């Protein structure tokens, strides 16, 4: 095997990184280079500079430092037992790609991950070196997301948090039993402890010292993780319970869900199915309901039932259909909490309703102008000029929203 050039390495090490769903570049501190001495800025919301034909946003240069790995996680293309070609970037190569791509406005920054080489500490310190080089030698002020190796020493994680905007550790499998089966070298306790430390360290950085000075920001865009959907047998309820535990315990910014998609040179242990994209989509919707709509995991995926989300209709609609006694909701008098439970009303339209109804009673057309999805909301709301009557309780209400059943094939 001859020596690979930069382009060949880039092909291999970006291909190896694409199974990580995270691409966010939002929510960090505001920085810019108006002083003329650096490169880059972050201004609140991130930017998707391109979209791949898989519909995913390309915001960061998402690469692995190396795809050599001493672990053997069944779901991973880079596991030690895979025959994929291996490569490794030098520090200079990653810095070159990041800054040259950034200057041409292709990206918001770097998302650097890596296979575990030699030891967790060795891997983490090499990654930190790249971030340090970018920030200190090249005055790079764009976004940096570093994958954190859970077993790495606290000093390395400390430096990573001071250099990067976001840190992440992927749990990948929602249960400890799943991790044991499919990623035997990973230690779920260690991951949780590492997430705790990041949360505690972030909280520490928020406190002002007795001199009134603010400590330097630690991972200002927070930490995140990813769960793979459809590789092991975990149902949606288990996945959502896992998420809500992660959000409440470690204050994660995001839990990403990634439909398990077939990888080259896959192990026989895992299904080579089409990735369950619809399921992934429903989980994201449910995740939003947990975080921004005041729903409880038990309400969205109740203990009774299959433990799976309805694939045909969204989880909020499913909840409303199962709890019709709470409807219709009067949009002119209902509280924010109640309005947030109405299918077809999002957080924005609810805020607009609350503001607009101070100027007068709202009618059906007003809701449309406010940006509500009135067709969906119709059976669940009453307005100045609309009442659903018995529509709320009709037996075939679900059929109005669910896609028509697929016709059976004759043969």
């Amino acid at each position: 095997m001859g020596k690979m050039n930069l382009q060949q390495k880039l092909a291999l090490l970006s291909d190896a990184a694409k199974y990580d769903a995270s691409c966010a570049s939002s929510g960090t501190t505001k920085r810019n280079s108006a002083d003329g001495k650096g490169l880059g800025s972050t201004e609140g919301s991130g930017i998707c500079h391109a979209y791949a034909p898989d519909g995913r946003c390309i915001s960061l240069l998402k690469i692995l430092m190396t795809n050599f790995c001493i672990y053997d996680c069944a779901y991973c293309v880079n596991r030690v037992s895979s025959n994929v070609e291996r490569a490794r970037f030098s520090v200079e190569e990653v810095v070159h790609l990041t800054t040259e791509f950034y200057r041409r406005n292709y990206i918001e920054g770097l998302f650097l991950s890596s296979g575990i080489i030699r030891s967790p500490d060795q891997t983490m310190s090499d990654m930190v070196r790249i971030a340090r080089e970018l920030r200190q030698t090249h005055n790079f002020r764009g976004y940096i997301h570093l994958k954190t190796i859970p077993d790495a020493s606290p000093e390395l994680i400390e430096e990573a948090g001071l250099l990067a905007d976001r840190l992440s550790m992927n749990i990948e499998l929602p249960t400890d039993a799943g991790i044991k089966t499919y990623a035997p070298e990973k230690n779920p306790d260690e991951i949780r402890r590492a997430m705790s430390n990041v949360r505690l360290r972030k909280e520490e950085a928020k406190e002002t010292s007795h001199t009134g000075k603010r400590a330097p920001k630690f991972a200002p865009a927070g930490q995140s993780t990813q769960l793979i959907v459809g590789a092991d047998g975990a149902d949606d309820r288990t996945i959502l319970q896992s998420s809500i535990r992660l959000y409440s315990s470690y204050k994660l910014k995001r839990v990403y869900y990634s439909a398990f998609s077939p990888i080259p040179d896959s192990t026989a242990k895992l299904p080579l199915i089409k990735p369950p994209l619809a399921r992934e989509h429903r989980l994201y919707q449910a995740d939003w309901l947990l975080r921004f709509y005041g729903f409880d995991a038990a309400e969205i995926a109740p203990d009774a039932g299959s433990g799976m989300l309805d694939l045909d209709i969204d989880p909020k609609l499913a909840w409303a259909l199962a709890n019709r006694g709470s409807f219709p909701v009067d949009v002119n008098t209902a509280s924010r909490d109640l309005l947030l439970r109405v299918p077809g009303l999002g957080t924005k339209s609810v805020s607009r309703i609350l503001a607009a109804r101070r100027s007068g009673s709202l009618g059906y057309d007003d809701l449309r102008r406010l940006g509500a999805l009135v067709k969906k909301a119709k059976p669940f709301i009453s307005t100045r000029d609309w009442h659903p009557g018995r529509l709320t309780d009709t037996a075939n209400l679900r059929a109005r929203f669910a896609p028509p059943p697929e016709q059976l094939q004759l043969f």
Partner: protein
Amino acid sequence: MYRVELPRLGTFDAWRNHARTLALGGARAEEVEWTLEGEAPGLFGGAAPPTPRPDAVLNVPKSFPDLARQVCASREPGVFFLLYRLLLRLSSEPRLLSNRADADVQRAEEIAKNIRRDMHKMKAFVRFRKVPGENTGRRQFLSWFEPDHRIEELVAGFFSRRFSDMDWAIVTPEVTTTLRNGVLEQRAIPSAPLSLEDETEELWRTYYANIFNPARLKTKAMQAEMPKKYWKNLPEAALIPGLIADAENRMRQIQESAPTLPPLRAERILHRLPEASAESTPPADSLNALTAQMKGCSLCPLYENATQVVPGAGPEDATLMIVGEQPGDKEDLAGRPFIGPAGQAFDAVAREVGLNRQATYVTNAVKHFKFQPRGKRRIHQSPNTSEVNHCRWWLDREIAQVKPKLLIALGATAALALTGNGKNITRRRGTVEQGTAGIPVFITVHPAFLLRQASDASRDAETARFREDLRTVAAMVSALEADTATSITADGPGQ
């Protein structure tokens, strides 16, 4: 009829100046014809602007200028008229802008939203190409872009804040924006499309092709966010048809290729790794060994949700052992007992009565945190009898190892664990009972009970009672330690 001609650059500022004069002079919306520089003038010449009425004032809500600045950039017909009408309405309806159900407000917000989208897409899809040639120290880049609306002024700041250490120009059909040596300049000059190239684009295309996952083909989602109209300026877009056409093939190949044998080095590497699950278990002959054993505890289901076991802490020869209920949020995260709000409350009172916490062993009846997730917080839940009984396995071993002379049970759960009875704590507090381990147990409330008091008065009263309890304990501890000292002296120094 008044006729106003607005310039291509500085459109909003000009609109604001004219609108202010017209509104103060009492001009109605229908009486003003707004045109842009270069557009065909109306049939009738305009009248001289009205003189402001002396009593007229013009106030607008803070959000109006920002909205107007964006709407002014739109190429939709009638935007200046719409803004002027909104301006006039605002003087009698100051809260108008918060009513999105109003047709004018809704229209203006919709236009502004399109402008923001156009701005966002320009920030996303401008592609700088390196200009070869003269090396002046600052590198030079050039870009051609065709926005839908007149947004060049609105986005110039973004590019100059981001790319300040290089010289660049963004050329659109109507405006050329440049940054040279840190100086931003915009000129309204018509330009024809530029055809540009840059060798780094080959690397970018390589990245684009490889970050795409053919198993997740979703072309509609891509086009919703990256409409075809932008493709001609994006170096990566030429790859799209090929990637789409080949996706299914690539998936079939993955599925059809049989699993391979792992490379030889795999076994060698895996062999060297310590297995995460099989941690060596040292014999329980010291406190450290006991702590190590506790780590993987799964005697009851609480381990499933908690972060980690929180073992006790303190000297192995402590006279006093303090037993609380269970670790809280903070303790669960840090892995150390009594560091959260209740632990701090305890420490504060202990200090007042001269009870040295460093010399005592502190632990909990239950070693994992039991909670209910509620949104972004974890709500404490008391452990049940079964959980307490399971965890006594560890508590008993801690007691056997430390051999304290006195135990304090803080609250019902600790009392249950140490005496077998967790009832009637308020009646039993301040008394010493014989514990199941044969060691006296002093019963008192949990410090969290002090924090839960609703009023300052009752908190002060309860803190005072708790202080008295700890004072009693401190006295008992001194007596016990004096005893020990005498017996050592009596027996003489050991060999």
